[in-house]
């Protein structure tokens, strides 16, 4: 499944970039991210507890930041495995400055869900994937605001 979207960030491009690639912010923005450890530069191991209603799962994941072109573009590659199934997702993020305090963020994603949850849950998967991704960027905007305040 794949999709794309666009949001406007309330920060300049440099600022947005820094927060986007900050592991702590990453942890705060990824739904259900209980643990995020840096393995090497731009590579993390994470435990994600993602649940929609009664369908809850713990996913042991690797998160990789690739194709970094500061401050305009990077890719986020997430691979996870857990009880309900497996996920391999690639998201591409492109930042375009609007003005000093505003940046446009465009994203595309391509996610492949495997295992039990894909075999029986296909009816909801597209919607749920979209939900998780939208949730990520919604939280990210909050993170930006938080860091603005803390500056």
């Amino acid at each position, binding site marked *: 499944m794949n999709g794309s979207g666009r949001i406007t960030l309330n920060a300049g491009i440099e600022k947005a970039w820094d927060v986007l690639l900050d592991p702590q912010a990453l942890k705060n923005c990824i739904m259900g991210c209980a643990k995020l450890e840096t393995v090497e530069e731009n590579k993390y191991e994470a435990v994600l507890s993602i649940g929609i209603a009664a369908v809850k799962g713990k996913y042991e994941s690797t998160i990789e930041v690739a194709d970094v072109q500061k401050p305009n573009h990077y890719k986020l590659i997430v691979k996870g495995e857990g*009880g309900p199934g497996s996920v391999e997702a690639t998201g591409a993020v492109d930042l375009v400055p609007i003005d000093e305090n505003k940046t446009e963020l465009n994203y595309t994603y391509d996610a*492949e869900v*495997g295992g*039990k949850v*894909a*075999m*029986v849950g*296909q009816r909801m998967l597209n919607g749920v994937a979209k939900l998780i991704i939208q949730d990520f960027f919604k939280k990210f905007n909050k993170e930006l605001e938080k860091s603005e305040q803390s500056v």
Partner: protein
Amino acid sequence: MSKVVGKRVTRVEDKRLLTGQGKYIDDIGTPPNTAHVAILRSPYPHANIVSIDYSEALKIPGVKGVVTGKDVQPLLNPFGVGVSAPVEYYPIAIDKVRYVGEPVAVVVAKNRYIAEDALEKIKVKYKTLEPLVDIERALEEGSPVLHENVGSNIANHRTFHYGDVDKAFQQADRIIKHRFHFPKYSATPVETYGIIAQYEISSDSYTVHANFHGPFILHSIMAGALKIPSNRLRIIIPKDIGGSYGIKAGIYPYIVLCSVVSRLVGCPVKWIEDRQEHLAASSSCTDRVTYIEAAVKNDGKVLGLKMKIIDNVGAYIRAPEPACLYRNHANTTGAYDIPNLMIDAYAVMTNKLPTGLIRGYGGQETYFPLERIMQMIADELEMDPADVIRRNLIKKEQFPYKTASGGVYDSGDYEKAFDLLLKTGKYEEFRKKQMEARKKGKLLGVGLAVIVEPSGSNMGYITIALTPEERRAGLPKSGCTEAATISMDPMGNVNVRISTTPSGQGHETVASQIVSEVLGIPYDKINIVAELDTATSAWSIASGSYSSRFASLGSSAVYYAAQKVKRKLIKIAAHFLQTDEGDLTIENGQIVSKKDPAKSLSIKRVVGTAHWNPLSLPEGMEPGIYETAYYTAQAEPPDDNDLINSSITYGFVADLVTVEIDPETGEIHILDYYTVHDAGRLLNPLIVDGQILGGLVHGLGGAMYEELVYDDKGQFLTGSFMDYLCPTAPEIPKITIKHIETPSPITPLGAKGLGEGNTMSAPVVIANAVNDALKPYGVTIDSLPVTPNKVWNMINRSIKQGGLS
């Protein structure tokens, strides 16, 4: 022979099944200390197994063991397969997984709940590989290769030329061609696979109970895989099987797996497949791409056909595949007199579930392009499809008809059956209605399809996968053997042992009918033993309930066994009554002289003598009454020109379907489904119509609902009955069945097999009807299932392109 056979007799099986006393695999109990199996399956379509860590699983109380591919490999050979490509197929992945659902590890535990707890604790590391999903991509250079040692994804490739195809295409006024795609779908009996397997170390032997509806034919492959003499693998089939429709032949890898797991863990094991496993990892029909080209005269006569057929057999070619590709080889040209035929046949492997038998086996894949192209010919020539069909139908005088590819159609009157169809379905009237409806913007459509229904497979047909040279190196295969044993006890009661492992077809009833009639004894003196045991049943390689073989073959074996018993009874009676055998007849339990009716002996007396007083029997006669009859019909191996009569009998089915389509939503409403059958002599019309309806509804499923769907990355998406859609009662249209009977000259009772015909015809006839309704939009249906969404897409696309709105 007109007293019971041919009557609508109710079934002897029913009472036990209606009261919950059926004896299915899950009802027969288990040996002491039996443990339960759960299988860990691959979530990936294509990946290397890096490591498997099951240490945590073993810590769960109640877990008796965990077995992986590496554990079983030393004990097994790869399964034998009937193609020359060196595909190594084991019942569990060894170091690589090739489809979603492939077994990776087996847990054995006290019960299934605990076994599934343990599955969650097994950690498998995979390295994913690029998946291959598309059929035609499998043929391309540079596509991912599933089996490195094979070097490509082609498991089998053969080309056949029959008649003079080039000339036919030169003489044609037009060449009409199209590409068709038939989907992968399943059979989903309500009872899933079930196995109880026990290894006995003292004799190095395996005893397996399983709901396999024809174990003989794959027995040698299983014994070969287990590396044991074949008589050390005893397979016992319970009396009741909860449906199969072919798919339970796919159980045999699991029989081998459970057997070897029992050996490794050291206790009997039981595995009842669950529904998700069944959908993802049992078996299915092939999905097939066909490029078909017809050489056509302007009057609609088809001079010749060229077909490129690509069958997708899934991740491993698994015996009896590539049989799907060749099962209908003799009847590739269907009900038509088309003497020139070229077939370029491929079986390819992709990252999907391996395939095998399901109801219709290859027929639906064959007739979908054939009957679609016949309708396209009519459209192209602006003829009525009925006229194109009639122009090409084999004539009554031509029987027995030899097909281009070697088939011998035993009997038929196709024109009569087709005329009856058009009359019953009020074809002309509907065409008028359709015209009127179109004026009002309503979409009515009518589809036609005529097919030949092969039954009783010739064991030789599978070897057509090999070249004549390759075939010469092996043992030729022919025939279609079936066996039955009839014994009588001293009280004159009868036990009939059949080998046909029924799964709902009423074999017990029909066998009772035949024995009752031949021996002149009432039902209540006859007991049918439907359990099969490879150690004690008469060994007949082809036995089982597949390829609609009971009516043509199983019943014949019963008939001949009954005749043997009858001859012996009469011989004994003639000896005592001092008359000729020809003078005696059986009436109401008595053996009576025709010349002098006062001279008679009761059957009971005769049988009693055979048991209690053997010394009084005619000289040289063996004591007891215990007769086994083997039966095969004439079915030769393929010849050096690749001519093969792949079946014993060939029935005929003609369908007419009318539909109405909601142009706003694309919803399809089937108004009427008419089907005319000629299955030779009908043994029990009650059972016959039940078989036809079941097959038809399965075909309707393939046409409109059922598909095992994989996404373009090989992920399996239809793992539950919420997404794999079987037709339910409200989806079934009004169905009208008519019969004509042209008896088969081949079988003793004149019967032909049936029950698969409409599974073959329904997908295409419904597609034809829908396409006919959508004719104003100029669309062509070339894939299935036809769903409202697809119909709407076609309408919408056509409107956007400026077609009718």
